[in-house]
């Protein structure tokens, strides 16, 4: 569904991605792991067109979308839950969710209402706070709102950039439970960027590990969970975390 080949992205003179290649199959949950500054978010920003890659290609459903505008990429069915949530602080919860539907063009009221109901079923707290402005929500609620907003786009590919960042452990569990159910129930393909490797590997079928802008490991989630190297660098030795 998504195939990235030898992608290189620069910020000024700094090369953030050095020939990254990866593939996400239809219906899969693929995880992108790596420490801070490894280039994970840059990869997401390149896919969504917020930064223009200098070399390489991004192909979505056999169409080359490299260098296309962010707006047009989102209209092709790629939704993004950005790092840091980026909800609209001055809009209330329901209006934030409505913004998620913009990429689908004009929709009948009934369909929008149906979609909202669906999101409120997944995140009941959002229904309770639907008239609250975004900035009044807690971090966890904002994260749920950001995911809900992404789902309102009914995407074929959902990009989740560090959805567990800054959340309390119990909320992290909740967020991953939702990610799994999104994939299982609607068959949405998911590319999940995470620092919490153990959690990410528990929902993903396949994962890529990024370090200093390059893919240093790629394998099925099971194999990576058993990998010695992986344990030393990303899974915190033998100890449990998250």
């Amino acid at each position, binding site marked *: 569904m998504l195939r990235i080949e030898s992608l290189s992205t620069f910020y000024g003179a700094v090369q953030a991605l050095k020939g990254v290649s990866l593939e996400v199959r239809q219906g899969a949950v693929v995880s992108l792991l790596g420490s801070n500054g490894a280039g994970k978010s840059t990869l997401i920003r390149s896919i*969504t*067109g*917020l930064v223009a890659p200098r070399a390489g290609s991004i192909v979505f459903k056999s169409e080359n979308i490299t260098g296309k*505008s*962010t*707006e047009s990429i*989102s*209209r092709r069915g790629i*939704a*993004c839950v*950005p790092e840091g949530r*980026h*909800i*609209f*602080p*001055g*809009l209330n919860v329901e*209006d934030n969710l*409505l*913004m*998620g539907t*913009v*990429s689908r063009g004009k929709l009948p009221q009934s369909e929008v209402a149906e979609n909202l109901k669906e999101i409120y079923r997944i995140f009941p707290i959002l229904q309770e706070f639907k008239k609250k402005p975004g*900035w*009044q929500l807690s971090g966890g609620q904002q994260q749920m709102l950001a995911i809900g*907003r992404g789902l309102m*786009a009914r995407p074929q590919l959902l990009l989740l950039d560090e959805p567990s960042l800054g959340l309390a452990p119990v909320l992290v569990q909740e967020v991953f439970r939702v990610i799994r159910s999104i994939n299982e129930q609607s068959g949405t393909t998911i590319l999940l960027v995470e620092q919490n490797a153990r959690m990410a590997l528990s929902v993903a079928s396949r994962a890529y590990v990024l370090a200093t802008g390059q893919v240093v490991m790629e394998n099925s989630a099971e194999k990576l969970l058993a990998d010695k190297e992986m344990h030393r660098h990303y899974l915190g030795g033998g100890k449990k975390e998250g």
Partner: protein
Amino acid sequence: MDMTINVQLLFSGLAMGSIYALIALGIVIIYRAADVVNFAQGELVMLPAFIAVFLLDTMGLPAVAVYPLVIICMGLVGFIFEKVAYYPLRNRSFLPVIISTIGVSIFLKNGAQYVFGALPQVMPRPTDVEVLVLGGVIIDPQYIIIIVSTSLLLVAQHFFFERTMLGKMMQATAQDKDAARLMGIPIARMIAITFIFSTILASVAGLLVGPLFYVTKEMGGMAGLKGFCGAIIGGFGSVTGAILGSVFLGVIEVYLAFYVSSAYRDAFAFIIMILVLLFRPQGILGERIAQKA
């Protein structure tokens, strides 16, 4: 007697405050959407007044046709303004854009003089009623027209931004551009619409204030500054603040001019602004920090 004068002053203050509010809103809405301060906002008040005088007097068209026509023309001006003065510089820092809006301001002033002449002109009033007498209080009917039209426009604007999809998309663009783009919101189009909307607010101010004073190429300069003052007093960046600050400014200015000195009328506005900047720089309704994050 004293009471009558105070009520008369209040109406005059509310009317001027309404004009400032329309100008301030235009400045604030552009600032929020595009992160630039438009220094040509005052000239967008002057230009429609000239066009209206031309259509009413020279062409002899009726007011009911002239007002909508001027607003449509000005919407077009707002569109061209955005494409010429903002769009090519949108990825630069705010300074080049500010300089370019100052350039537009100079161009519009001199353009108006070239086209319409250097002499002050009189804009015909929309009503033949000379004065309104309400329980002994004498009021210029134009004040009532200004206050009522502005209030209606503000209600319509509130409805537009809070209830329509387009209004919400414009708010989203102003609040977080990257997130808006990720949603598929065409932010370039949203910003263009913001400029058009803001220009229309200014032109309504021009049409309303035109009959009160002479229409000259300089009329926008002071009006623009007062609107800017109103926005700062209310809390720069806040829509409600811009309205409150401007109305407050208009009313207090009229009272100070009457009771203290009318010669210093304009100075009072700036003294108040400086005091606000010194003692409450965030304005009456300081923008909520969380809203900027």
